[in-house]
């Protein structure tokens, strides 16, 4: 069996001295799609930030291996270059930085990390246009300042565009479905499905079944109070949709 992409062992973490992840274990293998479902405030986004290295979170125990490397020892940009991607619940607007310019910096950073030559403007634009077209993102949007004044749907599509350019080994989608109408949801899901293959993996953080009807999960985890309380196949998500989180959280 090949090496896991992500291996979280007994992870505990605090934010502002409050323990928010408690002894969490999770292994994700190549080709797998995992869904992490849980009530508001369970610490799902916190987990995604700890994995990507956002400052302000303190790991108090455990370890995380990413493609055989000690993830927690890497800087956020190194984690990204090594193939970890987070589609954020609230993508950040950066006034003054044009979207296409931002994307070029990101892609070239990864190429540099991999020892590949940086792309010039023309080469980059060719790649960008192809990927953007798949997500119905026009040239106008690429010229705008990144995420500045973008609608909810535009922001989520922009996250998936970044994912499609960076081709991560593991993409964490943090509520990629929130604020999307049915058409936009399908566009995002199609984009993600197109990128998924046997060599990479997805960790989908969501409240709802909707997205999981478009992106089929192999394993569904119920996450509450800082750790996984139950794992199963997709039927678990369907059961959850019927009975709510309360059953699982109380049963613990």
């Amino acid at each position: 069996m090949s090496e896991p992409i992500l291996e979280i062992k007994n992870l505990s973490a605090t934010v502002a001295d409050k323990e928010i992840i408690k002894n969490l274990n999770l292994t994700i293998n190549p080709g797998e799609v995992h869904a992490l479902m849980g009530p508001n405030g369970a610490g799902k986004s916190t987990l995604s930030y700890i994995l990507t290295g956002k400052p302000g979170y303190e790991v108090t125990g455990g370890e995380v291996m990413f493609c055989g490397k000690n993830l927690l020892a890497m800087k956020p940009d190194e984690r990204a270059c090594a193939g970890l991607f987070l589609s954020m619940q609230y993508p950040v607007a950066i006034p003054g930085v044009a979207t296409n310019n931002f994307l070029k910096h990101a892609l070239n950073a990864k190429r540099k990390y991999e020892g590949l030559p940086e792309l010039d403007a023309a080469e980059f634009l060719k790649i960008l246009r192809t990927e953007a077209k798949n997500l119905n993102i026009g040239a106008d949007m690429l010229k705008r300042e990144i995420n500045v004044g973008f609608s909810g749907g535009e922001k989520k599509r922009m996250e998936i565009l970044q994912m499609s350019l960076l081709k991560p080994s593991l993409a964490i989608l943090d509520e990629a479905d929130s604020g999307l109408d049915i058409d936009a949801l399908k566009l995002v899901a199609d984009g993600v499905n197109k990128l998924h293959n046997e060599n990479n993996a997805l960790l989908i953080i969501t409240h709802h079944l909707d997205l999981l009807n478009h992106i089929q999960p192999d394993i569904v985890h119920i996450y509450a109070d800082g750790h996984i309380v139950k794992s199963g196949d997709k039927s678990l998500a369907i059961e959850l949709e019927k009975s709510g989180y309360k059953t699982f959280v109380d049963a613990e």
Partner: protein
Amino acid sequence: MSLAEQNITLWGDDIPWLAGLREKGLIAFNKSGLPTAKTEAWKYSFKAVGQTENLQIDASAHECDGHCHHQCDLPFEAYQIHFCDGKLHGEHFDLPQGVSLKPLVEAIYDGDVKPYLNKSFDTENFPFAALNTAYLEQGFMLIIERGIVVDKPIFIRYHTEHNTDTFNNIRNIIVVESRAKAEIIEFFDGDSTGNFNNVVNEIFLAADSSLRHYKLQSESALTRHISFNSVQQKSNSSYKCFVAQKECILARHESYIKLLQEGAFAEVNGIYKLNENGVSDITTNIRHLAPHTTSNQLVKGVVDGHAKGVFQGQIHIAPEAQQTEGYQLHRALLLSDSGEVDCKPELEIFADDVKCSHGATCGDLDKEQLFYMQSRGINSEDARRILIEAYLQEVLNKIDNIEVAEWIKAQF
């Protein structure tokens, strides 16, 4: 030798009115002396003026030995004028029909400078401009004649290489006649280690005229640079100034603008970036003296290390200046604990039907933006650089001439 007692002979001391004017400047300077903590207009930057005892004006004739390049390699076409070590190079200038430029001494000799020279400000209120008057000699008079639209920017390079403590005293008179339009670019560069520039520009905009005034201060970090820009505007004239200041001991750009008649419009925008221990001072005084006049100011700076950024913005609205608009905003990124940013807005409003606003912010780079970029693989150093560029870009976007904006950005 102090600045007030230079043992030099200047051209034209035998011309009574000129000698009288110089005397008046010296008296005004002796009365005020160098700025101190009590000089309101200098309260944040007087210290950076530093030692002046060893400063010497070089009153010898300009003899260019060809050590300086008289043509700058620019990515846009321009008419080029050059100062070498504080002295105007050449006597004849390649300029189009309707545009004339002559050395200040020639304009004094011809007498055509008389209606303008020292007419736009009162020496008593500005110590360095008073000193500039005391040693009037170097500089030029530029006239854009009525209705002339100059097709290319007029690029004025002030290049310094000397390594002695030299006081470069330069006075330029710029007259834009009615309906004329021009762009001037002032570029200060060179690796002089003891240079103190004291430049005064007197700018006169006639009715319906327009001047775009760009300035890039890019001298050695050991330079002291004071520039006083006194602007007088008649009806419906438009003056837009953009100033960019880099690291040096002191870079002070002062705009003193009088909107004399209805419809006059003035804008002063600027950026500064300091990394070590320099001082950048942008001081404005925009005086709305007639109804329906408008002014805008946007200045953004980046301060790191032990550096200091100063913005002082005065907007004066006279009682008769009804229906005027004056806006001002200064924003700074303070990237270190030992840096300093001082901002002093002063609004004096004596009319009741006006729109005026001022604002100031000071803070570090946005942590969410930094993390977002890092989470996309961009390292922290590059992310900071990109965010700083983006921060300043907002001001660069206000430059009408895109080629000039890109050139400034590339040099900055």
